[in-house]
């Protein structure tokens, strides 16, 4: 009888066969790719930044990463996903493209907020209303696309966390992140990925050189200026506390990027595989290029591990806008050129007084901001029209033609799209932090900054067990253990020479 009941329940449960739209291979890759990208945030960035900060800031850094990740998911499913990928908000039912670019711009600027919480919102065939006519129909459920896009939305604020580490207040971070996701990220995403204005103009951003990295570099720089610098001592001696921890984080970030760029066609296609290998080639070229510059022009003319990590990140960021639009030769060049430009900026532009004024703790404006902007522009140069993202859409192949292949205007389009992201994200970051600052200071007190994790969280990264006693609930805390009586038994003087 029990057997029969189980069988009946099994029969009543929906099976995959009733999702006629779904392709299991595509869906399996999409969920895998999304998980790879999620791992780049937690634990990837958590331990990468955790290793780069001083010992006293590890817990704070890791906690802000995990908490930020969680915060973005909540706003993402409640309203933000649809603002980035839903139907345009500022359009009436009978909207027609206007000849006025300003009107067009704002009609294709941001999506209408909405949740993804219903069964349809999770299991129905995915759709991005303004994009769908331009690509083959999704073989994925909404849940896969919502989650895949969430991990991108989540990593963006976690990247610019690197700019404001070691002084931004935890509370402020938790307020800032959901507001920034809702007001800045959704606009970036809609303009380039949701089928908005810049997508319609032909701007390309395969996986977020602009939506994510240029956005993170810009917002981090502005936020660092708003929050103010770290305390003098922390800034002057910003020594990383664990290079092996940096290695773990950096490795997860590199290989996680296979999902970052490989998942963006939304199909487990030849272009997905192309994006994966191109990503690794550009990264290899950029890493080696950075090490070479360190050896020939660096302060000590020696190869450095943290230099290699910078080069690696720059390569990953550089190829992100173009991973599935350039060929292999293009990928190698994009990595090598972008790495050279960012190395020069890191070494020479950082000496300019206005760059010194802003304490961008991890240098996100270089390794993500400048690297992302240059990556987007290099897409305009190297995009190969025979590298095809979608083979057949209404009889046409979808690809991008760069300047090298006879379409120099692509560079201009890329540049203008980049400028839009810079302006909007700088403005929104400034406005949010300005408003928050009316209610609460943006930074910890100097006393808290002096002590670090212990002052803010009552936890430290590497607690010791010597001289530690458990405080049991209901018992008052004991005073310091007195020195053993026998040692001083003969003395009538006060004992104890500690500080």
């Amino acid at each position, binding site marked *: 009888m029990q057997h029969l009941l189980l069988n009946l329940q099994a029969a009543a449960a929906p099976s995959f066969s009733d999702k006629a739209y779904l392709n299991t291979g595509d869906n399996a890759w999409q969920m895998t790719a999304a998980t790879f990208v999620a791992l780049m945030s937690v634990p990837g960035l958590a331990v990468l930044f955790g290793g780069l900060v001083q010992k006293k800031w590890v817990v704070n850094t890791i906690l802000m990463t995990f908490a930020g990740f969680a915060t973005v998911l909540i706003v993402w499913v409640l309203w933000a996903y649809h603002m980035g990928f839903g139907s345009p908000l500022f359009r009436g039912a009978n909207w027609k493209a206007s000849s006025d670019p300003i009107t067009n711009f704002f009609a294709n600027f941001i999506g209408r907020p909405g949740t993804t919480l219903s069964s349809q919102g999770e299991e129905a065939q995915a759709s991005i209303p303004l994009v769908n006519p331009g690509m083959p129909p999704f073989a994925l459920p909404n849940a896969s696309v919502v989650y895949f896009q969430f991990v991108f939305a989540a990593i963006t604020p976690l990247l610019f966390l690197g700019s404001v580490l070691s002084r931004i207040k935890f509370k402020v971070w938790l307020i800032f992140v959901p507001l920034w996701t809702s007001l800045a990220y959704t606009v970036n995403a809609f303009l380039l990925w949701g089928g908005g204005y810049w997508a319609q103009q032909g701007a390309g951003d395969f996986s977020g050189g602009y939506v994510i990295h240029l956005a993170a570099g810009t917002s981090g720089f502005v936020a660092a200026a708003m929050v103010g610098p770290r305390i003098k001592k922390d800034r002057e001696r910003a020594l990383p506390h664990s290079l092996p921890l940096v290695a773990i984080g950096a490795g997860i970030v590199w290989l996680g990027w296979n999902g970052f760029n490989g998942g963006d066609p939304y199909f487990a296609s030849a272009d997905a595989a192309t994006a994966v290998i191109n990503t690794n080639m550009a990264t290899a070229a950029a890493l080696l290029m950075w090490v070479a510059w360190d050896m020939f022009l660096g302060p000590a003319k020696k190869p450095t591990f943290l230099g290699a990590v910078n080069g690696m990140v720059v390569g990953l960021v550089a190829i992100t806008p173009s991973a599935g639009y350039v060929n292999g030769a293009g990928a190698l060049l994009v990595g090598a050129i972008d790495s050279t430009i960012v190395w020069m900026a890191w070494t020479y532009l950082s000496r300019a007084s206005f760059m010194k004024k802003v304490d961008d703790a991890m240098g996100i404006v270089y390794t993500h901001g400048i690297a992302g902007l240059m990556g987007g522009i290099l897409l305009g140069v190297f995009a190969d029209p025979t590298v095809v993202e979608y083979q057949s859409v209404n009889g046409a192949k979808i690809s991008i033609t760069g300047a090298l292949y006879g379409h120099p205007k692509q560079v201009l389009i890329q540049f203008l799209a980049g400028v839009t992201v810079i302006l909007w994200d700088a403005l929104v970051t400034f406005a949010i932090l300005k408003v928050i600052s009316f209610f609460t200071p943006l930074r910890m007190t100097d006393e808290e900054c002096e002590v670090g994790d212990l002052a803010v969280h009552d936890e430290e990264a590497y*607690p010791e067990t*010597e*001289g530690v*006693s458990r405080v049991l609930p209901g018992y008052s805390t*004991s005073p310091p253990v007195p020195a053993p009586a026998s040692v001083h038994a003969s003395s009538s003087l006060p004992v104890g*020479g500690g*500080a």
Partner: protein
Amino acid sequence: MVLVTAVVKPHALDAVREALSYLGVAGMTITEVKGFGRQRGHTEVYRGAEYRVEYLPKLKVEVLSTAEMADEVVETIAKAARTGKIGDGKIWVTAVDAVTRIRTGETGPSAI
């Protein structure tokens, strides 16, 4: 000759070092130490469980000095390390019988 030993808050080290250099002190030895005095330890919380950490990290600064300079060295350290809060530390002076500079073999005050 004397050995001036000071136990100070870790972040006071820069100020102490600077002040001593200004005074003309040519060398010092630093050791990371832990201890307690009137300043109690602090509390840490892991997975909801509260722990009392009895010993706090301090730095021990040791400076060799001539007997004539000792008071000035002590005063300088005290001034540089003082925040006025509990836990600023202590300084004590002990007599030193002999000092040798290893490189040159000099002994006595000229080896300091």
